[in-house]
């Protein structure tokens, strides 16, 4: 394997809760000294119960929030020292897919404009070329390019999520952070999006951080997994290993909570 693409070292994030002038500020430690590395092309899962800090880690790496401490090295570069224009240009390397298919697409933009936004921002393409690139991207996520001139509300949740994926892979990023991309979808629609993500990963050298509280989905998609509990990584390793022989009771409790799991155990 090639060297590390992303190194996260002792990452910390503390939020100060809103407080009045006379109160002592209260804080929440969302991420508490998390370290891991990801190699190019690898799919890494982050699991944990609600509030364990999964989204916050994703947002810190995507530079949507600033950490309170720690280091992030991306592609050999000090990722946290980037600022202003330099940061905006570097952002094309790390893209995100969000949880809500309804809120992550601007309702007033046509699909073509949504998918073209990263291309317009970073490249100088002609109108025809832009359309062509968008058509290819939509094709990659299994959507017809005939739909380019429609608005998001004319699509189902799963289709919207695929549009969001098309936007995220438009600039061929090295890392894709998917924060619960299927949690808001019907079970039957989840499969469509999972297949698209698998396909995208197969056809490009894309590393992915896949955030979810649903272990079956992580089990399906990820090679390695990190288990988060109250802001700290309590277990990290190959998915197969962690899920078949968890060392922490916390991990085991996550596994036991899976629906259908108890049934399965009863049958044995």
């Amino acid at each position, binding site marked *: 394997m090639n060297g590390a693409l992303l190194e996260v070292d002792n990452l910390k994030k503390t939020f100060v809760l809103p407080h009045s002038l006379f109160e002592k500020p209260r804080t929440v430690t969302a991420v508490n000294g998390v370290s891991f590395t990801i190699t190019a092309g690898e799919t890494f899962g982050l699991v944990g*119960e*609600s509030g364990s800090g999964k989204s916050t880690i994703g947002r810190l790496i995507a530079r949507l929030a600033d950490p309170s401490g720690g280091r992030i090295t991306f592609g050999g570069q000090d990722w946290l020292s980037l600022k202003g224009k330099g940061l905006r240009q570097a952002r094309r390397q790390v893209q995100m897919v969000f949880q809500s298919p309804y809120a992550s697409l601007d309702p007033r933009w046509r699909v073509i404009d949504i998918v073209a936004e990263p291309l317009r921002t970073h490249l100088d393409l002609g109108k025809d070329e832009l359309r062509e690139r968008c058509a290819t991207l939509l094709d990659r996520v299994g959507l017809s390019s005939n739909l380019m001139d429609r608005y998001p509300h004319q699509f*189902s*949740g799963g289709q919207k999520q695929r549009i969001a994926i098309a936007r995220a892979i438009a600039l061929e990023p090295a890392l894709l952070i998917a924060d619960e991309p299927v949690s808001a979808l*019907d*079970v*039957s*629609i*989840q*499969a*469509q999006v*999972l*297949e698209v993500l698998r396909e995208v990963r197969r056809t490009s050298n894309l590393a992915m951080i896949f955030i979810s*509280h*649903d*272990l*079956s*989905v992580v*089990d*399906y998609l990820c090679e390695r997994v990190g288990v988060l509990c109250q802001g700290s990584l309590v277990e990290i390793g190959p998915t197969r290993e962690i*899920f*078949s022989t968890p060392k922490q009771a916390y991990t085991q*409790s*996550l*596994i*036991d*909570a*899976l*629906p*259908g*799991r*108890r*049934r399965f155990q009863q049958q044995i």
Partner: protein
Amino acid sequence: MANPLLTVSNLSVEYPTRHGWLRAVNDVSLELAPGMALGVVGESGSGKSTLGQALMGLTGASQARVGGRITFDGQDITGLTNKAWRRIRGDRIAMVFQDPTSTLNPVLRIGDQIAEVFQWHRPDMPQTEVRRRTLGMLERVGIREAERRLRSYPHELSGGMRQRVVIACALALEPALLIADEPTTALDVTVQAQILDLMRDLIIERGTAMILISHDLDVIGDTCDAVAVMYAGRVVEFGATDDVLAAPQHPYTKGLLASRPRFGHNQAVAPIAGTVPDLRSIGTACAFQPRCAQAVDLCGREGPPLQGFVATDSAKVPHRVACHVVHQEPRS
């Protein structure tokens, strides 16, 4: 069934839209014995919530047109007035919705919200008794330090705790039927498991019948005795949960099962092709036919009836399916 608690016959619910009537529930017939847990599963838009609302007499608000008959506890409740409904709702039939935040009143302490249920339906109950029962209910749904928690406001609780309070409100008067519409969809897997366990324990302990609406067959598998699979407003498969999960018959049920990754099995998931059809454009044909790989000519012409396909012994829940292909094939 000897003495069903709930009988639904040929229920249809139609919403007025600007392009004519939209039939969200189409010719649904069901029977529910006392204490039985029935799961209703289907994709978004298949009419699950509409069915639940019709059973609660809540479709009036959207000017829906309701056809068919609903009999609850021997009484025909199809044409009840709003006033009569208000007496039944919360007392004999209770409901739990997906989003606990919008169910609870944000400016009322949770103790008062539960007490309100007693005060509304049992005006004669003495205050001390109301308080004792409220406390008992909170403890029963697993809220620690119930005494102190009585005074909390909903926003001070986590999503899972709030859903526990909602369940406490719903079960306070020991209703005969609980309708739960995606009660855990907004929660994470760990909390979901706790809430489902709690609901299961409570209904078994009190003999409450339950209709659990979900889009996840696994959730229903863990909780319910029987399952009804809905597609485009119709029940396409019905049977004991064990039968349906072990040997699904309808291509749609099979598709639902295959589209979910199995934990610990690395088999590929297979999404169901296509999308849910426009409910106004379904003619007489089987609504699933455009997405069905096994469809034959007949499927495009007439809709299959919901029929039992093997003789089951009468004690068991019959396994029924609405599919021409299943009924045509002689089963081995």
